């Protein structure tokens, strides 16, 4: 079964690269530009995994996770954070809010794909 990935990043470059890497790995990719956009697309694309940036306009990654985890339907949805940040307190905050994993940008294509396979159903 094709793994469906929702990738959220405000940077067009990053979205492009994610799309390139993930679609290339055979995933079905939906792109969103910020947390709000991600939330709106969540229902339609029904992803197996979400990858999200943290610092974004309109709604940031934390806001996104908070919103998703607040909906019972998405409780078990794996959410990976893809960010340039690596501060421990941010990681802690993300985990507490319900993030599944943390990947530091720039990402290695193979490892990203492996990470998605690891958490995707």
């Amino acid at each position, binding site marked *: 079964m094709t793994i469906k990935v929702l990738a959220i990043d405000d940077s067009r470059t990053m979205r492009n690269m994610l799309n390139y890497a993930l679609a290339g790995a055979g995933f079905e990719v939906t792109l969103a530009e910020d947390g709000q956009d991600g939330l709106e697309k969540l229902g339609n694309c029904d992803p197996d995994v979400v990858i999200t940036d943290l610092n974004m306009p309109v709604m940031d990654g934390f806001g996104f996770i908070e919103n998703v985890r607040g909906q019972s339907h998405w409780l078990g949805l794996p959410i990976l954070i893809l960010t340039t940040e*690596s501060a421990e307190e941010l990681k802690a905050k993300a985990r507490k809010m319900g993030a599944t994993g943390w990947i530091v940008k720039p990402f290695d294509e193979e490892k990203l794909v492996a990470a998605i396979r690891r958490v995707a159903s």
Partner: protein
Amino acid sequence: MANGNDLLDTFYQECEDLLVAMDEGLRELSEGESDPETINAIFRAVHSIKGGAGAFDLTELVRFSHRFETLLDELRAGRMTAEEDLIEVLQFSGDHLGDLVTAARNGEESDTEATERNLGLINKFLGPEKSSDEEVEIEFEPVSFDFDLGLATGGAGRHAITFRPTRDVYQLGHEPFRILRELAELGTLEVTLDASEVPTLDDLDPEENYLSWSILLETESSDQAIQEVFEFVDGLCTLEIRPEGDAAEGAALDTTPFDLAAGSGVSAATTVEPVPAPVEVAAAPEAPVVSEPTGSEPAPPPAAAEAAQAADARDKQGKQKAKGSNASIRVDLERVDKLVNVVGELVIHQAMLFQALENMRLSSGSELATGLDELSQLSREIQESVMAIRAQQIKPLFQRMFRIVREAGAATGKKAVLETAGEMTEVDTAVIEKLADPLTHMIRNAVDHGLEAPDKRVQIGKAETGTIRLSAAHRSGRVAITIADDGAGINRPKVKSIAIEKGLIPADADLTDAEIDNLLFLPGFSTASEVSALSGRGVGMDVVKNAIQSLGGRVTISSRPNEGTSFLVSLPLTLAVLDGMVVEVAGHPMVIPITAIVETLKPPKQDFHGLDSSDWVLSVRGTYVPVVDVGAALGFRTAKDDPTNSVVIIIEDEESSRTALLVDGIQDQRQVVIKSLEENYGHIDGVAAATVFGDGRVALILDPSSLVEQISRVGDPSNGTRIAMEERHAATA
């Protein structure tokens, strides 16, 4: 499928947008706007550039943007305030970031000296780059996963693993079963389930985990590979990985941070703090049963959720409108240009078809004629749509000028601010591109030559800081751009004496103020006697004028002593087509842009008033308008003795002054495709370009304002001077 270059292109395109956003934010900051979202927007722009640069291994860009970002972060977190000196450093850093991006894009060596200098400025605020910063940079190595364990010993063999996930592991999107499956891929697996913690059914929360596993793994893979499998559950489980039969190594591994007890306070918090969501879930009908607690099969959303989604969709429509730019795509300019050309050909061919049918004398009500009418309407719509694609706001260009003013001010020791207006004015992309250089030069000039030194300004009661005003607007079918300073105005005696000195005008020339001002545009006129840090660049106003003329534009100058100088640049909206009135002049078809035309008349003789044998003015509803005989002006024939057998076309230029053009007759009105003459021929005063009609005839497109300007010069009393100037002009053309 995209390739690496496409990705890189996107990155640079995005950088452009981000730099504009950053500049805008920095400008707002410098104007005293310190709202958190402004600072955050600057931060995000720099942050995104850093992120992309890291992905493409642009190390200097990463290093610099990282420090810049750190400084912004301090400001964002409120640990610093936006004082003037900090803002200055931020602006310099923004400029330098732009330079680094440009250098990287063009594959040039970046100015590392400038980077160091700028980092030095940043370090004044942040202190020297600390080792912790270096650590951060390591993360931009394209090896990116976040391992807390550096135990990469090659431990092939048998491993005993105890894996005890926390209660809430499912809720965070983890699935122990998948972890076991992944382990199985590494080698042979023997798994023992420990279900001793599972409570009675009454106490069981289907969302929670009560299971743990003992695993015996036989593998050739390294310890690191095994640990990687558990990467994301680090802190969410008690984990022990022990090489079987090697007690010493096992002891070392026992203390890995995977272990919950040894982990950070975070994991403790995770286990202690109740998660509110599962409480609701337990009541929900679609909660997964305990035997399959995966949470991976998304149940259909309940009606409420569907309704919420519908509302979301509605919201979204509204928001997309508000955001505007969101629903956009990027298209290669070449493709658009091709479309423009093809549509241009379409228009010409449609005109030909029309002509051919007319020659067949079809009745206007015939099916063919109606169909053709519809076709012409459609092709017109296509054309307008294509033009709209090419139109772009002038804002990014204006944004760049803030930096020019800053730099020019710093270089000349003058204080200057830039004020802009009409940034949303849309102009053809090609026009914007080609306008960058002349505009930059005019802005520099305005600071360098226009404004007085700060002490002088104070002396004469002006504000110490001079103002440069840059504005854009649509005016009579063209784009008018004004560059105005509030400086001393043109020093006319000085300009005149320089011109005489350089032999540009005779020593006894009697010139009007406007004529003196226009001397600035003469080739060879350079205010070399006041060479400053900027003016030594060897570009004169004549180059500016030529650049603007090559765009089908005009530049005029006006100046008032002590009030300042302003340049008005008038440009066509597009370089591709125009609506024109086809007129006949001395047996030649010519096109006058409709946008310039106010009205057409056939006035009676008594409305013409002769000034001398060939100069006329026309009385139009009580005002007198100068008359220009187009045929004579272009040298087709001598001026008419009797203007009454001509048709009069009243035109108005950007400055709203009117002129009556005499032509022999009006043929029709149509849209014509502009074919530049300048590429193959050169610039001719009074002629903007040429076009091809449907019947294959070539016609000149007139540039009414320059035609009028030319006539008023020829008819000038100081003809001798003028001719000298014309010759100079011709020599450079």
